[in-house]
């Protein structure tokens, strides 16, 4: 009788219970790349980046921490919504342009391509030695399905967009935009030279060229670019994206807002996604 009951419990009960009542699969996180023991790990209660890295045996010798990529399902869902909002704004701009404007077709094509982009779900992370991360704000708690990838150290800068010869080019320390653009054959005539975007290896994007002066929103002041603090530096593993000049468009926020939007799309969808 006991045996019969046990068989019933094991096989029959899950079948008669509603789906939600069945036990869910254990949450899992994945760690890949330059790590001692890559693989899928069961997510423990209170698990953070540092504890996962420790469980996976620590960094491999080639691990390049600034390029670490953490992909997260919930972030991907949030980015999908954000991308949908951007598409709506683009479509509104296309409608305002009207078909008689010369840049209309280009903007429409651009809106179409953004509509089909898939968000990466990348969460910015800043890894360091594990003992320094513990209890620090960088030691993010992990979620079910998180995927942490540790690349090896890159040697090149990726150059994309309105250039004659886009591709990957060696990154020398202190490399400047003109040198890299020259290596890539120079700007195409339709390039928005002032709108060049630097996508850093950590997934953050911002405008590289800002003219002779730029407004610093955080400090509430204009700054001469020559004296700007924290000027962006081009380093190995970074991606340079030169957009096309949008021309006179109906973009309500103006050209600066348009450029910021491009940078955000790159952050969401990753390099190589924009036309």
């Amino acid at each position: 009788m006991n045996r019969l009951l046990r068989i019933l419990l094991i096989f029959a009960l899950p079948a008669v219970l509603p789906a939600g009542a069945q036990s869910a699969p254990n949450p899992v996180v994945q760690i890949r790349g330059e790590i001692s023991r890559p693989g899928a790990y069961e997510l423990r209660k209170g698990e953070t980046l540092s504890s996962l890295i420790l469980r996976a045996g620590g960094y491999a010798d080639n691990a390049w921490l600034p390029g670490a990529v953490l992909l997260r399902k919930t972030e991907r869902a949030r980015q999908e919504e954000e991308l949908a909002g951007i598409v709506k704004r683009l479509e509104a701009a296309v409608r305002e342009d009207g078909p008689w404007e010369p840049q209309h077709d280009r903007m429409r094509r651009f809106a179409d391509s953004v509509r089909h982009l898939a968000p990466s779900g990348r969460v910015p992370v800043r890894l360091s030695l594990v003992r320094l991360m513990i209890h620090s704000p960088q030691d993010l708690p992990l979620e079910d399905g998180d995927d942490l990838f540790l690349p090896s150290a890159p040697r090149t800068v990726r150059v994309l967009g309105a250039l004659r010869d886009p591709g990957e080019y060696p990154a020398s320390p202190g490399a400047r935009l003109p040198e890299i653009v020259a290596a890539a054959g120079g700007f195409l005539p339709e390039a928005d030279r002032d709108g060049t975007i630097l996508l850093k290896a950590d997934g953050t994007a911002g405008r590289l060229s800002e003219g002779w002066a730029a407004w610093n929103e955080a400090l509430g002041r204009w700054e001469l670019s020559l004296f700007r603090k924290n000027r962006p530096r081009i380093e190995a593993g970074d991606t340079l994206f030169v957009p096309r000049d949008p021309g006179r468009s109906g973009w309500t926020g103006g050209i600066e807002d348009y450029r910021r939007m491009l940078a955000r799309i790159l952050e969401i969808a990753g390099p190589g996604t924009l036309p």
Partner: protein
Amino acid sequence: MRTLAALLACLSLLAVASASAGDAPFTFPSNSGLTGLLETPTARVMETNRYRVGVGMADPYRWYYGAIGIFPRIEAAGRVTEVGGVPGFSEFGGYGDTKDKAVDFKFQFLREGKYTPALALAVLDPHGTRIYSSQAIVASKQIFPFDFTLGLGNGRLGKRPLPSTGENFGLEIFTDPKEWWGDASLFGGIQFAPTERLALVAEYSPVAYHKQTTDPARDAHFREPVPSRLNFGLRWKPLRWAEIDLSWQRGEQFGVNLSVAFDIGKPILPIHDPPYREPAKARASPFEDRVTEALAGSGFRDVGVSFDGVTLRIEARNDRWFFPERAVEVILEILSGMEPARFEYLQIVLTEEGIPLLGFATTGHGLSGYGAGKIPGERFREFSRFTMELAEAPPLPVRHRRIVDWDLRPSFETFLNDPSGFFKYRLGASGQLRATPWRGGTLLLGLEGYPLNTVSTVNVPLSNPVRSDIVLYKKERIAMGRLLAEQVVRAPGPVFGRISAGYLEVMYAGVDAETAVPLFDGRILAGAGGSYLRKRDPDNPFRLRNDREYHTLFLNGRLNLPELDLMLDVKGGRFLAGDLGARFTVSKRVRGVVLSAWYSVTDTSNFTDPFNRGYHDKGIAVEIPIRLFLGRDSRTAYRIALSPWTRDAGQDLDRHRALFDQIGPNLPVRMPGHLDRKDPSGYTE
């Protein structure tokens, strides 16, 4: 010109809606301390809750100044301007060169925006002799590392000096905008700060020295126009808090300005109070005993604990923690480390001399969650309550009772601007011996010793001397400051009462009594008080002078605005010299430091001397917690006041302790909206 006034009013309104600040790094001091170029102000203001003190010199002038960023976009400065080569009092050599006191204010009514400059109204020396007075509208726009300034000012910065206003304030920009416009001249300059530590400045100053007929320097030094109206300077900050400015001014003089700047209330040593660790053997004791010992080990005295199986009641006198809310948190931390789930309700009452001042109530389950970090501070605060309306319950038997207490602290007092010497002082120590033999009762002996004492005067006491003869008392090297008995009572309501009798302060003895009622959780304090006094004999600490009796009678009110960390006080009634009127005090709290300024308006017709007639008593005071220097918490605070001692209008008794100040820190309205286990000053380890 009415249009201009309207425009100014509109711009003031705009300020409410304006956004982020962009003043850094151009918050350097001008010659006289207010943020500016060299002789002229900019539209920049100091960071809020930062202050600086300094000394500047550009012959023949020397400036001794202090400035403070007391509210967002408001800066205030006080200074003494000394003019070399012009004796202050020809008959008294000790005073040295002539000196003028002044205060300056700046209000940045429009913050710098992307396309708009910062705009500020600078009011320089608006009161009294107004030798260096001006009102200026000034704009500054930054393209880092350059900062461009253009302004328009009258008076010192305009075409002619402004007249004295005696005891009144002069603000022509508002009272007569047409005259201001007609008298105003342009000024401006450029600053270049390639790094946060270094800056160059070039300035056009409109000051026409040879036309400043009210300036004592004019006849001695400026009979002809100065060679140049262009000034140049170099500013260097060797440390974040220290600045050295070198300049070439008026085309004829080198200038030097040395200043230091600090955040108000930032401890010199980080405050670190290690948490209480219960000895292992104590864990076997009854729960009430464990709590009692833990509180006593954490700086509480007169500790009473009772537990009826449901409610844990704690009464404790906070002898260590400057902020009452921190004292409550310390108790909560102690209980969290024990067995918070054991009791359902918790009541904490903080007492002083046995008088309950502040109550706190919460639940055991809430405390368990908070202690384990499962409930954030703001959520925990939602089901906790600070209150002064304490249920009438028999007092708990207390342990670790402290009946006799004492303190000794260094003391430094200044006596400024006497004709026989501008800067006089006394440096020594003051000590108090207190006994609290019964609930609310205090016996107090205060002794003062000043081995270094230069206080003296050539002034004679005025017509009705209640303070103008204070030097007779302050010149003594050793004095019995107080010897008094005091009783504080608390009645339901609550209503507080105090009566003190004895030698109440260094000048007066007698009886002083007052009441205080907190209303709306302490948002308002209302009260009344009065005193019946005789003057003490300066030559004998126990003898009283028989020449006259004095009495005061006041209605007191305080509005607490914790949202702005402000207190507004009004004291109206009969002052010591019999003058009727009111004293208005504004106090600002910054991380435990209290900055106050007061101004009195009294009927001075009963004075027959010209010094008191029409005089308004005014002064500033700062209260500094000693914890800023100790590296640990302490309730002790120093109070330093700067106010003329040579006037008798608007004077009151110098009380050992006023009820408003005793109750004030414990008012529920001042308690934080969340508990975060951090020091309320924001600086802790």
